[in-house]
C-alpha cells in the first residue's frame, strides 16, 4: 500500500522534474549550452577530494602548521576555481542534430550530431550519451566542428522513434566536478514496420511490359548523367565533374526491369493494420532485392512503380508512417 503510494510520489516527482526540464531546455534542432542549460555538482571524486581536504585541515590545526593551512586553503580555492573552469568547458558548445538513419524495429539506428565550438574555447573530454546507449567521448581542440555518430537500438514499434534527452557531460579540467546538460535535439529516427513473410503475394498485377529500360541505381550499366537529388547514393556522385566546377551530378546507371508490380493494401483482406504493413514491407524489400519495379497503394497514399534506393525509402517511409500523426515530417 505504502509501496504503491511511494511509487506514485516518485513517478509524480519524476514527471514534474521532466516538465521542469522541458520548460528549461525546450526541444530544438541545435542547442547552445548556456547557464540556463548547464548543471554542475561535485562528483564522487570531488567529494573524496573535499574529504581529503578536511583531513588536511585537521592535520594543519593539530600540528599548528601555517604552511599546511596554506596548502589546504590553496587546494580548496583550486576547487572553487575549478567550478568556473569546468562550467566554461561546456558553456558555449553547440550541438546540432544532423541526421538519424532509419532502421527496422530493434535494430541499431545511427544518430549523427555536429558539435560546434564556441569562439575562443576548446571543449575537452565531452561525454555524450542517450539513455540506454553506450557513451561517446569527444574533444574539440583547434577545430571548428566535429561530427559524431551515436548508435542506439530503436523501439519495437514503427513510426518516429524519439530517443529521449541526450546527456552531455564533462568533468574537465580537474575531474572533481560533473557538469552536464540534458538536451532534446528533436531528432527522431524513422522505424520501418517489421517485415513479415507471407507465403505468396495474392493478385500480382503487372502493368509495365517486360523488358522496358528502367533507371535503377546500383546496377552496373552506365546510362548518363543527371542532376543530384537528395537521397542519391554518394558512390554515384560524379566527383570529377564537381572538381571541374560543374554542378553536382550523379552517374546514372540503367538496368532492364523484368516486370513491375503493385503492392496493394487490399491484397491482405481480413488482416490487422500492422500485419498488412509488415507483409507489404516484406514484399517491398524482396522486390527491391530482385531489382523489380514496384508501386505501393495505401488508403491514403499511392506511389507509382519505380525502383532504386530512393524509391525503396519512400515506400518504407509511407509504410512506417501509415496512420501516424505528423506523417508529413
Amino acid at each position, binding site marked *: 500500500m505504502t509501496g504503491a503510494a511511494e511509487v506514485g510520489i516518485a513517478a509524480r516527482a519524476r514527471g514534474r522534474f521532466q516538465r521542469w526540464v522541458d520548460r528549461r531546455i525546450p526541444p530544438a534542432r541545435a542547442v547552445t549550452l548556456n547557464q540556463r542549460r548547464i548543471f554542475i555538482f561535485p562528483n564522487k571524486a570531488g567529494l573524496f577530494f573535499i574529504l581529503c581536504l578536511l583531513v588536511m585541515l585537521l592535520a594543519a590545526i593539530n600540528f599548528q*602548521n601555517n604552511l599546511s593551512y596554506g596548502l589546504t586553503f590553496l587546494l580548496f580555492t583550486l576547487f572553487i576555481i575549478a567550478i568556473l*573552469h569546468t562550467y566554461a568547458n561546456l*558553456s558555449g558548445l553547440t550541438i546540432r*542534430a544532423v541526421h538519424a538513419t532509419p532502421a527496422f524495429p530493434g535494430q541499431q539506428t545511427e544518430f549523427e550530431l555536429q558539435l560546434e565550438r*564556441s569562439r575562443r574555447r576548446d571543449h575537452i573530454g565531452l561525454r555524450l550519451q542517450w539513455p540506454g546507449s553506450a557513451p561517446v567521448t569527444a574533444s574539440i581542440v583547434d577545430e571548428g566542428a566535429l561530427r559524431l555518430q551515436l548508435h542506439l537500438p530503436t523501439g519495437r514499434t514503427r513510426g518516429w522513434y524519439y530517443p529521449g534527452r541526450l546527456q552531455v557531460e564533462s568533468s574537465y579540467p580537474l575531474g572533481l566536478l560533473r557538469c552536464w546538460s540534458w538536451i532534446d535535439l528533436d531528432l527522431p529516427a524513422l522505424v520501418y514496420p517489421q517485415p513479415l513473410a507471407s507465403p505468396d503475394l495474392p493478385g500480382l498485377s503487372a502493368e509495365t511490359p517486360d523488358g522496358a529500360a528502367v533507371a535503377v541505381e546500383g546496377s552496373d550499366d552506365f546510362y548518363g548523367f543527371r542532376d543530384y537529388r537528395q537521397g542519391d547514393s554518394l558512390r554515384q556522385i560524379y566527383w570529377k565533374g564537381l572538381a571541374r566546377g560543374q554542378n553536382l551530378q550523379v552517374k546514372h546507371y540503367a538496368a532492364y526491369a523484368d516486370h513491375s508490380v503493385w503492392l496493394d493494401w487490399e491484397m491482405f483482406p481480413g488482416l490487422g493494420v500492422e500485419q498488412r504493413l509488415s507483409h507489404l514491407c516484406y514484399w517491398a524489400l524482396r522486390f527491391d532485392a530482385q531489382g523489380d519495379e514496384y508501386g505501393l497503394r495505401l488508403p491514403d497514399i499511392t506511389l507509382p512503380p519505380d525502383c532504386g534506393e530512393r524509391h525503396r525509402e519512400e515506400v518504407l517511409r509511407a509504410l512506417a508512417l501509415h496512420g501516424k500523426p505528423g506523417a508529413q515530417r
Partner: protein
Amino acid sequence: MKAEQQIPRNALVWIVISLFTLVLPHAARLPAWVLGVYGIAALWRVMVYRGRWSFPRWPVKLTLVLAAFAGVLLSFRSLIGLEPTVALLLIAFAFKLLELAERKDAYVLLFLGYFVILTEFLFSQDLLIVLLCLLNVILVTTALVALHRPGEDRFSMQPFSKASVMVLQAAPLMLVLFFLFPRIGPLWTVPIKSQQATTGMSEFMKPGDVSQLSRSGEVAFRVAFEGDIPPQSQLYWRGLVMSRLRQGTWSALNYYDVPASERRPQEPVTAGPAPLRYSIIMEPTQQRWLYSLRYARSNDPGILSAPDYRLVRPVVIEDDFLYRVSSWPDAALENTLSDWRRLTELALPQGSNPRARQLARSIAAGAETPADIVAGVLALFTEQPFVYTLQPPLLPEDNPMDAFLFDTRRGFCEHYASAFVIMMRAAGVPARVVAGYQGGEVNPVNRTVIVHQFDAHAWAEVWLEGRGWVRVDPTAAVSPERIELGLEQALASEGSFLADSPLSPLRYRRIDLINKLRLRYDALTYRWQSWVVGFNADTQMQLLQQWFGEFNARKFALLILGSWALVLIPVGLSLLVRRRTHEVRKLDRLYLKFCDKLEKMGVAREPGEAPAAYAARARRALPRLAAQITAITTLYQQLAYADTEQAALDKFAAAVRNLN
C-alpha cells in the same frame, strides 16, 4: 574497462614526473632503499604500459606491503612517529603506481600526492622548500588535468599551463582564507618528531662539544632589534645555565631540582635604563630553552622565566619559533644568594682535578676579595701559553681539567669556561657555566643579527657580593679576537673555520656577489619566517584590528565575500563571457541566416536537405520570392564549391540581407 576510464599516456608521463618531484624534498630524510622502491615502481609501470610486464598480482602486492612495513621498522626502529609514517606514506604512494590501471586509481594516487606535500611542511618551512612544494602542487594538478584529456597520447605541455593558470587564480583566494581563517589550538595531541635529531646546543656539555657545534654554518636564530644593535662584545645569548658537574660533564638543573620556594627568579632591585627590545625567530631545536640577552623578560604567552634568568618554553620547539624579549643588560641579578643556591653553585665532585683545585686555593690565598681571585685566574690564562683552537687534543677521562691546565693547554671556549668555574668553586666563589651563542652577523639588508651555530660559545658567571651574578668570559683572556671579531678571525691562522662544509656560502663571504646574494636571501627568509611561519592567533587579531578596526563576524563575512568576488568575477568573466554561437565559415553563417528567414516564413529546411532541393520547395511555397531564392542559392553553390572571393561574398551577404 571503459574507454573513458583509461589513463591517457600524457597523464601517465605527468604522474611519473610528479612522483619524483614529490619525493625530492623528502629525500634527505628517507632511507636510500625507499628511493630505490620509487625507481623500481616507475620502471615497472612503464614496462606495463609498454606491454612487456603485467600488473603485480595480489600475492606479490601483499609481499611488497609486508616487506615495506618490515623495512620501515628496521630503518626507524618504530612504526609510530612522524618520520616512519611519512616513509610509509611515500612507499604507499610508489606502490599505488603499480595499481594504476583506471582513472579512479589515479585519483587516489594524486590526492595522496597532495598529502605528501603537506607532510613536507611538518619538517621544513624553508622558503626554497616551499617554492618546490608549490611547483609540486602545480605538477600534481597537471597530472589531474592530463587525466581528463582523453586520447592524448603525445607528451603535451597544455595540461601544465592549464594547471598553472588555475593555481595562480586560486592563490589570491587562498591568501584571504589564510589571513582570515580562525586559528584554533590543537584538537588532540599529535605524534611528535621522535626521530628528529636535536640541533644546536645540547643539555649536557663535555669539553669538545661546543667545538663540534662550531663546525656548522647553519643558522641558529635571527634577531631584529627595535633600536640600535649593541656591539658584538655585548651579544652574549644565554641559553643554558649549567650549575651541576658530574663525571666531567656540565648540565643544567631540572625544574624539580630547584626547591619549590626558589622556582621563581628574584626580581632585580634596579633594572637600569630603558631595556633593549628585540624579537627572535629560532630555527627548530627540538629542545625547550630559548636564547636571550642578560636579564630577559618576555610577555609572550607560553614563555616562562627560570630562576637562573633564562627563558624556557614548556613545549618542545619543533618549528620555527618567534618570540619577543626585553632585556636589561645592566641589572644586578640575585643580590641575595640563598643557602641552597650558594651550596649548589659551589659544589664540586669529590677528589676530581686535584691539581687545579690546589692551584685555585693558592691563588685565593694571595687575594683579598673574590674579584681578585677572578683576576688572578684570568691572568693565569693570559700569561701562560694557552692556545685557542677548534681542534683541541683529546683529554683523559680522569681529571681532564688538570690535563688541560697543566699539560695540553690547547682548548676551545668550553675548556676555558669549565676550568675557570672549577677553579672558582674550589676557591670558594659561587660560579657556573653558561652555554649559548656569542656575537652574530649583522645583515645590512634588513638590520637583523644572524646567529650561526659556529657562534656557539660557553662562558662563566660568578657571584660577587653586592654585584650579583657577573659575566666572566675566560676565552676573551686567551683570544680577544673571538669576542671582538668572531670565530672566523680568531681562527684565521688555523684555517679550520667551516672546514667540514665546503659548500656553505659562508665560506665564500669574500666573494662580494655571493655574499650579497646570501644576505639578501637571509633577509627574505627572515621576512618569510616573521610573516608566514610566525603567523598565529595573536598576530592575526593584531593585524585584522590594525587593518579593519574592531572586528566582528559581519565584517569577517563581508571581507571574505568581497575579496573573493574581486577575484572570482574577473576570472568568471574571462571564461564565460557570452560568445556568439559557434565558428562557422562566414559563407555558411550567411546561408544559415537565409534558412532562418525562410523558416520564419514557414519553410523550414529539413536536416540534410540539399540547397537546390530546399530552394525548389521554397519557390513552390513562396512564389513571390522565387527569383531571390534562386539567386541566393545559386550564389551559395558557386561560392561553396569554387574559391571564395571577398566581392562575391559581399554580394551574397547583401542578397541575404535584402531578402524580405
